[in-house]
């Protein structure tokens, strides 16, 4: 029974990873940028929600109404002010730029908030620990379920948005070929800025859930970036539902690893990442290109 519980918890944890990864994957899909500040921006979102919840009596969920647009603005400004310029300079410069942003964000947060770990759990009442208890060691936490549901909604919403709306189609066209998109009247600069805004807002949402389900500190960002990246790679870059699957595989592997060793949680996650990577290499070595949805065969 303990295994069933662990696997179920792992699946739900995968929902959080998918939520975290969806912005990273989206930004890569549209602009071909891997945003190394993604994790730190998630923590920034968590900190903003924390300040509101701590200073006023406003619930963190209500605080999101203010924080998500603010995060979107941050993403928009980051794209317009920095990344847009870096995109013209090849592949190296966006990486260096976002790494620089990551260093600035996490250290500025440390300067503001200090080394203390914080959590939003005290501000969401009994949601933090309520659960459906089926037997003594088989239960489903409300919060974990909520996060999973939000992840599915966000991924599904993004899917519909890209497929059914004019802006979504413009984003896909720009992702395919920005120059040709310009020819048919799409403003690719505005599209990029919109995509960055969506990605960073979703990072802020994921960060808020991170803060609700556990503790965080200003330097929590890099590990979140790594989790998000692992989920994306395991699921296959460019596929939104693949990201959910990748998150679930990562979460299950971590929860099973934790049963063997206190450090097994992290080790098993990283090992799973390399196992999937090795599998991909093997398959792409054997099969003809294009048959397999593989990050390794994809052109940057």
């Amino acid at each position: 029974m303990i295994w069933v519980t662990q696997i179920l918890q792992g699946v739900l944890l995968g929902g959080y990873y998918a939520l975290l990864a969806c912005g990273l994957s989206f930004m890569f899909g549209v602009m071909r940028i891997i945003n190394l500040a993604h994790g730190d921006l998630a923590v920034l979102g968590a900190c903003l929600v924390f300040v509101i919840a701590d200073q006023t009596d406003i619930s963190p969920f209500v605080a999101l109404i203010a924080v998500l647009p603010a995060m979107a603005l941050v993403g928009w400004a980051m794209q317009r002010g920095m990344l847009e310029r870096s995109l013209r300079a090849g592949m190296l410069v966006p990486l260096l730029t976002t790494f620089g942003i990551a260093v600035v964000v996490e250290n500025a947060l440390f300067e503001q908030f200090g080394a203390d770990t914080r959590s939003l759990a005290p501000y969401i009442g009994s949601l933090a620990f309520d659960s459906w208890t089926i037997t003594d060691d088989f239960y489903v936490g409300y919060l974990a379920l909520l996060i999973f549901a939000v992840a599915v909604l966000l991924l599904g919403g993004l899917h519909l948005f890209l497929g059914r709306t004019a802006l979504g189609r413009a984003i896909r066209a720009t992702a395919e070929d920005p120059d040709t998109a310009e020819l048919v009247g799409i403003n690719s600069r505005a599209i990029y800025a919109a995509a960055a805004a969506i990605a960073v807002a979703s990072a802020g949402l994921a960060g808020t859930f991170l803060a609700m389900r556990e503790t965080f500190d200003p330097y929590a960002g890099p590990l979140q970036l790594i989790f998000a990246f692992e989920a994306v790679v395991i699921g296959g870059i460019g596929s939104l539902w693949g990201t959910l699957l990748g998150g679930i595989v990562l979460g299950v592997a971590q929860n099973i690893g934790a049963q063997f060793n206190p450090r097994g949680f992290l080790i098993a996650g990283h090992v799973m990442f390399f196992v999937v990577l090795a599998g991909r290499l093997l398959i792409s070595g054997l099969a003809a290109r294009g048959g397999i949805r593989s990050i390794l065969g994809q052109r940057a």
Partner: protein
Amino acid sequence: MSGPDAVTVQRWTTASVISTIAIATLAVALAFGPLVLGPNAVDKLTTLFIYLMLAVMWNALAGYAGLVSVGQQAFFGIGAYFAIQLSYHGVSVYPALVLGAVAAAVVALPVSLFMLRLKGGEFAIGMWVVAELSHLLVNLDDLVRGETGTSLIALNEYGPDARRDINYWMALGAVSVLLLLVFVLLRSRLGASVQAIRDDEDAAAAVGVRVVAGKRIIFVLAAFGCALAGTLWLATFITFQPKTYFSVQWTAYMIFMALVGGLGTFEGPILGGALFFLIENQFGESGVWYLVGLGLIAVVFALFIPRGIWGSIEDRFGIRLLPVGYRLRLKDAPAGSATLQPP
């Protein structure tokens, strides 16, 4: 124009002959450092040499082979860990420092099989995962005692003064050898081929460059260099706390030094390393704002001065102190007026 005879390809210029001799002389002169300098200065210079090693290695990776790694701290830590293991198992302590770095390079070989198949940002974070995983695995070793860490106890057989001088000489020797290796590599066929890979991998492959082999040599060299820097850091500070050695901070420093000095130039990371050393001595005590400042400077350089300080000087004045490239010279024109510049 007067036909192909009007053009000669030059490797050495007067300026580069003079500066190469000057740099070699400087290296020899520095070898006498411990005889004339105070203990504090010797310690500081040792730290500078270690920074230079890191800067030169990261530049070789990113500036020449186009591989942006955010996980070079993996090798910094693995090297130090292997040195401790070797010394614990009876290898004499100073040889253990070099062998530890060699062992890290051996580990880098299978790692390269995975990582070099990843492109751009995927390689960057993939290396970060490598660093995280090595950190966790090193922590599993009882010898290290988790985050409490351990020390290179065997160094106690040397007195503090002898230790300081040996560390200095080893660091000076290591940075000289690494610079020489990069110099020789860049002048070889490999130098031209990795730069072709960096500029356009598909085009390079199309003209017959062996893409993966070229990248692999640089990758393993950089792993060795960063690991050697790690073992020398261990010799200087004796204690080994995994958290410190596997910190992403090291890569942040490497990026800063290579980027500010001039990515893809031979002289740039040396300049960047020296600048970083001065900045750290001046502001290192001021804590976190100092790191915010470093990050901001890195962003500004990446966006507005991507060729760094030395790259900008090179572009403007056509100076190249060390002859790692070729110069195209028109017979009728004065020297330096028509040189081939990278884009």
